[in-house]
């Protein structure tokens, strides 16, 4: 299975949300990282055939996914960023309804939704109305519905948004469990979500793939070094102005900083191995929080 994107572009009334993206996905977990407004959601919606590209093509094993239509979507599982549901349906009915539009036979749907509710810890909530669920449980239902048709391609847009740290960890473990032999594309702006589970990372900036590769490969190619130093409070303010600072922590003897710089920013600064978070900071700087949530 190979999902191939070739010069995929999407324009919205003068705004280019996705700009000539080309890449190839095979089985494995891919983390799509980028600040809000980078174009992640638009790219994912095109991969789910919800939006047609303005230019370029998306092919699965050499066939256009829009021409494949239902046959392509039968192999797809999708959790949108804004996971909408029917508030007055019970969890069980909701999953059975989604199973039906995914083309599962009623008996298979009942069996599959039962298995997945067990996997995601939703059995006790099966008879509860969707509107009575907590945010975390709704997210779990979202993940469950994406898996109903045992998809080969799983697209998860900000799946951990609104989850508490414990639930995020549970989600990561669940994803590791189900990712085998599938193509999983996971979009997030929370670096730790993908750092441990994604084999490949794609950094998306201004509608383009700015960089891609494994965590190690990407961090090793980072042109800046990472330095840890402890400085007096007044000096810390000056360093904050001059450098990209990945972390600040108050320490007994002053302020501990994690700085991205070519050379040691102060004498006594110790080099540290770069992490994905450092790379994120290097790539996106102080961006983020733009009013482009859905782009």
């Amino acid at each position: 299975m190979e999902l191939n994107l070739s010069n995929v572009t999407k324009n919205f009334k003068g705004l280019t949300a996705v700009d000539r993206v080309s890449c190839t996905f095979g089985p494995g977990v891919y983390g799509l990282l980028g600040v809000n407004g980078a174009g992640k959601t638009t790219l994912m919606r095109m991969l789910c055939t919800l939006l047609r590209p303005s230019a370029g093509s998306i092919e699965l094993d050499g066939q256009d996914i829009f021409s494949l239509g239902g046959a392509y979507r039968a192999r797809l599982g999708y959790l949108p960023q804004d996971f909408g549901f029917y508030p007055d349906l019970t969890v069980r009915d909701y999953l059975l309804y989604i199973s039906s539009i995914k083309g599962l036979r009623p008996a298979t749907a009942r069996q599959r939704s039962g298995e997945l509710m067990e996997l995601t810890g939703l059995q006790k909530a099966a008879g509860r109305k969707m509107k009575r669920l907590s945010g975390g449980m709704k997210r779990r239902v979202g993940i469950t519905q994406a898996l109903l048709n045992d998809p080969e391609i799983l697209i998860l847009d900000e799946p951990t948004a609104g989850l508490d740290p414990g639930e995020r960890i549970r989600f990561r473990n669940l994803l590791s469990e189900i990712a085998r032999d599938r193509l999983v594309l996971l979009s997030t702006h929370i670096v730790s979500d993908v750092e441990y589970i994604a084999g490949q990372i794609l950094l998306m900036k201004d509608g383009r793939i700015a960089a891609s590769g494994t965590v190690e490969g990407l961090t090793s190619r980072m042109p800046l070094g990472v330095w840890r130093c402890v400085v007096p409070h007044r000096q810390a303010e000056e360093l904050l102005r001059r450098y990209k600072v990945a972390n600040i922590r108050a320490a007994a003897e002053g302020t501990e900083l994690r700085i991205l710089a070519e050379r040691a920013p102060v004498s006594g600064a110790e080099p540290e191995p770069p992490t994905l978070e450092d790379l994120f900071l290097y790539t996106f700087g102080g961006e983020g929080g733009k009013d482009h949530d859905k782009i």
Partner: protein
Amino acid sequence: MTRYEIKKLFSTAGSKLALLLLLAILLYTAFSMIHDMSCPGPEGDMLQGLEAAAFMRQVQQDYTGLMDEAMLRRAVEENARLNALYGDNAMWYKTAFAPVRDLMSWTFVPAYRDFDYSVIDRLSPGEAAGLYERRVALIRDYLQTGAGAALYSRSEAAYILRRMGALKAPAAVGYTKGWDTLIQGSGLMLILASPVLAYLVSGLFSQERALRADALFFSSRHGRKKAVAAKVKAGLLTVSGLYLLLELTWAVLVLSLLGTEGGGCSVQANLFSWRSGLYNLSFFEAWLLHLACGMIGVLFLALLTMLVSAAFDSTPLAAATAFLPMLLTVFISASSLSVLNRLLYWLPEGLFLLRDELSFEAGFLQLGSAVWPMLPVLMVFYGVLCLALPPCLYQLYRRKQPR
């Protein structure tokens, strides 16, 4: 899929409220129709409601069958006998032949719209026997030299006279309160219930976007084909199912309270159809026709509502559409513009008011010298729309792009 779409429809508080409203409309119609029924009783008092119906049912057995010369003569003779026996109090004893007497009161009058309650007192049995001929003469005068000459074209007048001449004579009469109330009340009930039925499906398409569930819907395997068809099917099944349930409940309620007799009697021998009716129908046939017309009407309204729901992704707008024909009727009725008034004939409400549509006063469609009464025209017009709208709805919604 369809089953879950219907489940989604009925899961909301608004839908449950709409179902309660339908029940309230049914009960209100039953109460108002039966309560308004009255007739003079044997004790010199006015009977009302079920009591009146029971009395009419009992005494009108004597005037059941073909309203032929013998029956007409018998009614006049009986009327004369009662007048002689009771004088001014005779009216309390005439309920048995009241339907036959009323037809004479509408017929042996100088002009089409006149009514003379006491005409039977002045008729001889021989004159009464000419009831059918007099009816046609009355209509002819109205259309050729009376007020009708300005309202109907020559082709329309010729059509009316041809159809009137073809009405069965003698017509079958008898106690028909059950069937008459069934058809009349059902029309009233549908005027009120049809927007509620259409309201039920107003969120069928638009709620997907309102709940932000459209992305999942369209990215599913059947999201662009079968699932959309299931939505259309769910809407049509819900509306037609509830419509039939409402109609059949109404029929069982009315006929069990007022009696099933009279299903074979002629609609043309009833007051509402006697002078202007164009159709040879029994009450049972008229009810079946009413069921078919009502089904076309409610399906059209529901489809229009669903189309707005799908096109604009707005449940409030779609819900407002459900009430649009009713508002248009009120608006056009209040207008003095004749062009607008002609539009009244074309509104789907006509499909609910069968009693009115059986009359030539419901208007005609004339193309060249060919003339058609509005009832079949409305049935074909809205019937074709009902067939054409589902594919349009399907094509419109399956091409939607979620935001």
